[in-house]
């Protein structure tokens, strides 16, 4: 049992599309409109020191679904997107905190530990509809609030960044 468990992450790494993507170093340039810029302590870049990601590149990462209540809407909402840790893994980010910036000039520092402790989603759809920048799009950092009582806290609520367009790893 132990050996299998030990090699399981390696196996997952080998099989996942992320690995294929990651091995095609350096990062390919974006072909469509850039939706997210990752900067700072990252190993893979495609635009100077930054990684510019388009919808296609994000779509190559494993898709995840998450249903949860939020602090600003009624009832449970179903989100879809990529896990924050998958995204940071894809650019080989190495840092303690991630500064998330929004189009509305909102900025907040999030410990990277959050992304490992919880399945934090960088969502691009809500209830099957793509998020737009007229609402909370194009991307929304969503915490699995319903799965973990400790996340039902105002100190986590301010980390739910919507209109996300940039991450800076430190």
């Amino acid at each position, binding site marked *: 049992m132990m050996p299998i468990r030990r090699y399981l992450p390696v196996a997952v790494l080998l099989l996942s599309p992320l690995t294929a993507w990651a091995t095609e170093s350096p990062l390919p340039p974006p072909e469509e409109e850039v939706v997210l810029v990752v900067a700072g302590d990252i190993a893979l870049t495609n635009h100077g020191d930054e990684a510019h990601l388009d919808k296609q590149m994000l779509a190559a990462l494993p898709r995840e679904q998450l249903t949860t209540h939020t*602090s*600003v*809407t*009624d*009832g449970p909402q179903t989100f879809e997107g990529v896990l924050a840790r998958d995204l940071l893994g894809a650019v080989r980010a190495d840092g303690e905190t991630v500064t998330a910036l929004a*189009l*509305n000039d909102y900025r907040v520092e999030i410990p990277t530990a959050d992304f490992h402790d919880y399945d934090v989603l960088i969502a691009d759809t809500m209830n099957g509809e793509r998020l*737009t*920048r*007229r*609402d*909370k799009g194009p991307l929304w950092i969503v915490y699995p609030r319903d799965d973990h009582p400790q996340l*039902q*806290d*105002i100190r986590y*609520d301010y980390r739910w960044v*919507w*209109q996300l367009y940039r991450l800076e790893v430190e």
Partner: protein
Amino acid sequence: MARKLRAVPAYAIPSLAIVALTAFLAFALVRLFQVEQAMRVNVDENMLWVVTQAQVASHRLDQAVNRRASGDSSEDPELRLDILTSRLTLMDDGPQRRYLVAEGLESHLDDALTRMRALRDSIATAEDDARFAPARLTPHLDALMASLNRIANTVMMAEWESTGSRLDTYRSSLEQVIISIIGIGLSGLILVLLLLIALRQRRAAQRELMGHRDRLEEEVERHVQRYRQAAEALAKALDRERGVSEFYRSFAAMVSHQFRTPLAVIDSGLQRLQRRHRQFTPEQRSERYTRLREAVTQMTRLVEASLTAARIDGQQVEASLGRHSLWRIVDRLCHLQIEATGTQRLQPVHGAEEPWAWCDRALTEQALTNLVGNALTYSPEDRPVSITTAREGDQVVCRVTDFGPGVPVDEQPQLFERFFRGSNAAGTDGTGLGLNIARHLARIQHGDLTVHSTPGEGTTFTLWLPSADAWENRDAPP
């Protein structure tokens, strides 16, 4: 019924105290939980941020429109409008809209949303730079900003009101909790007091129970004592009865064994006198009569001695012990002997210290009389009989010494047996009971009688009795 009535309050008070304690505790916990919940819910606190951010977005749009008009192409009014749209959309979302409606701001919100849509239409229906012409956008923007301003104003006041009333709620909840805690303390105090009272009552009950037990034990002990005394009295009575019957049995045995011979002697002597009455000279007759009288006297002595021995056997002899001087007993004895027999052979010798004995005077006299009688009888008439008294340790002694033939060594062990008569005693009158009786009398008085005899020189009988001093100073009297 009365007992039931009394039992109710005894159980009711602790039960009430426990119920009160539980109720206070539950109430305090509920209140604290409510406070905790209330502190978590803070939609309204977030609301001011939402509104001010919408205001900022509207100003940024205004700024972008004006800058664009003045030729700054880096500004993107469309992005600013999108951001403003997103802010207003957020305000239109469920919780936020409900809050604003509750504050009576619905018309202002709807107005702002209408203006926002007008702005979008205005931009969508124009082409190129005309899309962002201030002249077309500013009226809507101004109205929108005015609505937002009004909303922000009201929300600010509502938040302060809400914060104030929430603090009031917290304060009153905390006061209630404090009162509950005091209630818990009081209930606990009551319970502790009840416990202490119960403990004290139990201790008192225990003490009373033990008192009862002690009294019961005393009672039982008293009864037992009484029964024991009754049993002892019965046993004593039985012993007395047994003694009486033993007395008769013993006396009958002695009579049947010892009286036949002297009676036969008397009978044959009388027969001879009857038959040969005429042949005897008056001297001979007188001699025979004397012998017969002596035989009768001997029989009388035997009867008396037998009675004494039988009384001893039947435990009919009781010593009434007291403090008596051996000097006086011996002197009186000598005086009586001299009066009765006229003998000059008695030589009482007293030491320096007067020996006080713990004894029965009459019994001691009888024992000594037997010893002195024997000494006078079994020693030559020309030899004296010495009587000495002395104190020896815890005892006093009286020694009666004769200078007769003594007792053969092999006979000495049997000397005190009943009806034993030594070989030297042949030809003398004796009952065979004197020494036996004397030893018994000594032993009844917790003393003893011993003999020391050297054939050819004489015999000393020693009567041992407890000294009065030693007896009185004993730790445990009998």
